[in-house]
């Protein structure tokens, strides 16, 4: 029985790696569908046919797609992400600092949203049916049903326009004091926290309610255990697996959210970089950013699955 869990995890990891391969395939071929010739785009309409042919040869554009794909994948493994079309800089250099910025944003959001969402989700589940529970549920459904940019614009209207507490734009360059840091991150983090927490609250609430409906919790209730003891001692330890699973799954919503939030608040992260790259059709940059996002997403959903496997007592 004890070999079951490791083998399931191994299987899940193999699936994740295969998935990553298929995804990189999809990303590469989707971006190579681009109508118009890359060399012509780079050199401009006025370029001579000889110059275009020379560049095509230099960039290996005449090779079959499968070779270009393999070369690209090998490059990724060696840390060579290619060169940006738009400003001729190595993609790795463009991404570097922005990646750190995005991770900072995601990290702070996680630190804020996880405790908040868990508290709200668990208390709402405990007080199921109460007014408090209903308010939390309606609010979280409301946030889930509207686009991320609406959450962001509402936050700007509330905090920057009506209350005038915070600036509407975020520029991570001129930081002089702690207050500046707070002001820069406040708006993006508030928006992302709403988006991610809403999902997390719903899933946590559902997980705890499911545990509260089990026979052993009823037994504890009949035994005369207090409500706090019921939740903290009997229900929560058993709901821990599903809750961690919910947290990992909800954090994958960060990826969709961060694309909108970085754009609307002008935050210098990779999502903004990628949206700009799409506007200028800068393929190497788009491919690398897309791979980073897919990898992040895949890590989160794989982690969620593995937690679900490990925490399932039936598999032990």
């Amino acid at each position, binding site marked *: 029985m004890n070999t079951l869990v490791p083998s399931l995890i191994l299987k899940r990891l193999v*699936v994740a790696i*295969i*998935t990553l391969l*298929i*995804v990189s395939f*999809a*990303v590469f071929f*989707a*971006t*190579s*569908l*681009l*109508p118009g010739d890359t060399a012509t785009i780079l050199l401009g309409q006025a370029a001579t046919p000889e110059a275009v042919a020379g560049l095509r040869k230099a960039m290996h554009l005449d090779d079959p797609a499968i070779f270009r794909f393999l070369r690209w994948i090998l490059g990724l493994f060696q840390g060579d992400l290619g060169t940006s079309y738009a400003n001729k800089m190595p993609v790795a250099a463009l991404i570097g600092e922005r990646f750190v910025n995005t991770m900072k944003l995601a990290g702070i959001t996680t630190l804020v949203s996880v405790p908040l969402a868990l508290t709200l989700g668990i208390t709402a589940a405990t007080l199921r049916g109460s007014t408090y529970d209903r308010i939390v549920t309606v609010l979280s*459904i*409301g946030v889930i*049903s*509207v*686009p*991320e*940019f*609406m959450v962001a*614009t*509402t936050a*700007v*209207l509330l905090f*920057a*326009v*009506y209350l005038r507490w915070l600036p*509407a734009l975020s520029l991570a360059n001129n930081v002089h004091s702690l207050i500046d840091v707070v002001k820069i991150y406040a708006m993006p983090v508030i928006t992302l926290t709403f988006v991610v927490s809403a999902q997390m609250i719903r*899933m946590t609430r559902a997980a705890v309610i499911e545990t509260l409906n089990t026979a052993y919790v009823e037994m504890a209730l009949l035994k005369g255990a207090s409500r706090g003891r019921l939740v903290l001692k009997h229900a929560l330890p058993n709901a821990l697996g599903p809750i961690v699973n919910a947290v990992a*799954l909800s954090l*994958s919503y960060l*990826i*969709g959210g961060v*694309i*909108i939030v970085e*754009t*609307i608040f002008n935050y210098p992260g990779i999502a903004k970089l*990628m*949206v700009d*790259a*799409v*506007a200028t*059709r800068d*393929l190497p940059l*788009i491919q690398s950013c*897309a791979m980073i*996002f*897919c990898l992040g*997403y*895949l890590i989160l*959903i794989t982690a969620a699955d593995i937690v679900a496997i490990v925490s399932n007592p039936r598999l032990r």
Partner: protein
Amino acid sequence: MTDAVASKPAGSRLGYRFNIVGVAALALILAWAIVALLAPWLIPHPVGEIVDLDYFQPISADAWLGSDYLGRDMFSRVLMGARYTVGISLAAVVIACFSGVTLGMTAAVSGGLVDMLLSRFLDAMSSIPSKLFGLVVVAAVGSSIPVLTLTLAIIYIPGAYRFSRALAVNINTMDFMTVARIRGESTLYLIGAEILPNIIRPVLADLGLRFVFIVLLLSGLSFLGLGLQPPYADWGALVRENIGGLPFAAPAVIVPSLAIASLTISVNLLIDNLPQKIRDRSA
């Protein structure tokens, strides 16, 4: 087959469970549908006409929802925006669910290698975050209305597939399926006449949810400037072009968001208040 239908008590509770919230939500959805159909005859001003020399004007008697960043009538633009948001999303969700459900039922009935390959491939597809998928496709082939519709549909095929496959696998083990197989019925007959009628209700509820996801994704892409391109403008694009009015709290930037919210929340509420609640929200 009659057995499976009769075992569901939903029909008898229909009158009770269709409460006031559900009716209100349905009314709002129908209203937006009518607006989407009749928009060209409802708008007070042509969408391109500049009615106000001042931009980001507040609500007035002439311009019911104020003016946009060029001084155009916002009310007319929102009504016309409904056409694109509702129309594209509806087309995309129908394509997505039709393909996904057909594939899902086929996989469940066929089993074996077909099932495994389809499931593996579509699972991999669904591990690309939806917004990212949209971005990559738009970068590759541009964003005309047909491309946008098809992209949105493709993004949501894996979800519809997984949902319907899970339902169909259960039906597949029923006795009437075995009987139909022994009769020598074709796969097409099996999925069309035996499985589909038994899963149609949860599939329709799922279609509603997927419609919400597609509206949100389309709005998000348009908001990023990568969805519908001018001169067309859906609700997401309306928010984008008027985002400059945010510091003045202009109605031009708030109203399109509210339009999206009213549509998506109504669909969610309607589904929540439907008599049947057999569906998987996490899909």
